[in-house]
């Protein structure tokens, strides 16, 4: 079944070494760009698979566009579009900040 096959996906970390020490995406300041290294499975792998389907794929470039007036959620530009995530989920994504 398609849903079973898709449900068994494991998001593997990006294996190319990036300069700079990795931080999680919620720590990246607005205006900065980072490369997605891995999407962690802290809250069940459903979340990481959905984040992958939304374009937060290991190796992809992410830019922090802006934060909401009350600092949460945050809009990111990834895969050629803009999407808002809450910081609690952005924390699951490890990025290597671009210099």
């Amino acid at each position: 079944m398609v849903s079973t096959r898709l449900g068994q996906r494991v998001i593997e970390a990006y294996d190319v070494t990036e300069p700079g020490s990795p931080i999680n995406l919620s720590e990246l300041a607005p205006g900065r760009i980072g490369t997605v290294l891995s999407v962690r499975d802290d809250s069940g792998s459903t979340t990481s698979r959905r984040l992958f389907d939304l374009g937060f794929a290991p190796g992809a470039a992410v830019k922090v566009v802006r934060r909401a007036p009350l600092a949460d959620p945050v809009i990111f530009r990834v895969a050629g579009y803009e999407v808002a995530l809450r910081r609690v989920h952005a924390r699951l994504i490890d990025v290597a900040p671009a210099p």
Partner: protein
Amino acid sequence: MTRRDRVGDAAAQAGVRLALVGSPNSGKTTLFNALTGLRAKTGNYPGVTVARYEGVASTSAGSVLVEDLPGTYSLDPISLDEQIVTDLLDPDAGVHDVPAGVLVTLDATTLSRSLGLLAQVLQTELPVCVVLTFTDELTRRQGVIDLPALGRALGVPVVSVTSGQTRDLTALRDLLGDPSRWPIPAVLPPTSPAEVSGWITSVLSSAGYEIPQIDARTARVDAVLLHPVWGTLIFLVTMFAFFQMIFTVAAPLQDGIEQFFGYLGSLVETYVTIGWLSSFLSGALLGGVGGVLVFLPQIALLFLLISMLEGVGYLARAAFLMDRVMSKAGLEGRAFVALLSSVACAVPGIMATRTLPSARDRIATMMGAPLMTCSARLPVYVLLIGLLVPSDSRIGPMGLQGLIMFALYLLGAVSAMLAAWAFSRIGRGRSGPLLPFYMEMPPYRIPSVRSVGVSVWSACLTFLRKVGKIILVTTVVLWLLLNLPARSAVELTSAGVDANDSIAVSTYVIDHSYAASAGRFVEPVFEPLGFDWRINIGILASLSAREVFVATLGQVAAAQDPADPSTALRNMTVEDGPRAGEPLFTPPVLAALLVFFLYALQCMSTVGALRRESGSWRWPLIAFGYMFVVAWVMAFAARLAVGALV
């Protein structure tokens, strides 16, 4: 069975059924509307309450049935909504008959993401046709794509459809008739994440894809609309203007409809000489239909504004600005959409809670959603506010009527949030898994006139059907309750009523009708709120639908003075009890009524929706009970407060 149903069945019998799949904002619904026009019908999937949209599209090979599936970013389901999309497309799931072919709408400006969804759809091994949307926007933003090369790389037909281009649609219609002839990819795309990323990169490079520039216009507008200070201010001003417009722009149209039905009523009274028939036709039938049709301008305007804001892309921004506030209510940002839908009607609002992943959030939102000011409350509010303050009273530059209306909408929204917060606290401890909140911020776009038009049209149609089925029947039944048992001239004379005085007769008949008995029976419950039996009749009748209250009060008033019901309402006096002889609709009583209608669950359709969505009678009973108690207490408080002020 309507003609539309037969058309749908005919196409279903012909066997060609296509599914339309795509992410939200990919132009999927615009394409659906363009293909099927006004021949779409809404229903539900068997056993679940996810809305099902089907329409018939003409192709060069005859009619095909097109099914617009809920928008999704992935076939890897995280909610019941998404499970349906996956099951509908998966031959192995065996839940539904799979479609003969799948149309996948892909936004050309977000191909790097949306090809992932296409890869998953191709996994079903159904015939697939790609409809590339927004290629004009891609070009404007200096992006490039080679369509034939994309088709070769994917191995499936690719058609570019720019909204409003009939030439593009003709090419698509030629393909739609026979999905079995669509090319099928020689090799299926991979499933594993790393390989999918590689597949997307290689498809895009074969198609010579160049990612479009960031939309400068959107970035400039967002800098203002999402600005911490200006953005918040503009959000509040937008919502405020929204309700002022619904009030002021619709008014002349409503006056016109009112006059037209008044004219029809006078024609009936002139030409129909049988007394009771004339009264039934003008009072029950024309009165009922006209009294509801009069609110069509407001409903059309409401949906016009909502669908325009959505099409432009502002609704996503509003949800972004509101998310943190929603989280204070223990809800997630997506609940904003459910609560906002409830502004139109709580029934779709409650159904929209399906998109919430956790059961606790769903129940909490459902318990709050009916408190949002729905379009059925609008007629009631308009009538009562009209009695409360004159239309020309102003506070500064703002009309007082619009201001009260805005306050009621605000109070409804705040109460809905508080209720959701309370129920999410109660439900804590049984929470489901933490699922991601995400929301796409589409570029600002000018919505197609057709899409907005279809949205307004179907909203009005739904409202009218509701009128036909519920309100008209209730109005007629009520007319009967109010006018039965019939009184003979002998009986009237023996009761001391002059049988030639029509006003005295109708007053006597109503005062001794079945409805009066019911209204008097519940009088002790509502007496502290200042409601008399005539208001109680309206409240009882409004259980079928809130707007019935307007028709009922109108009918009660018309019996007293058929020539001018609204003045009759204004001049109504309390008939018995300690307040006998005083005006009935005093400001404190009007305030109590407004607040009562704000809180009470006077809507059996909503109760039905709650029953279906929560799976038992428990939650609808809890909702009805708690809302009645809150409504009574708050109405009592409002009567006291306004009584102290005036």
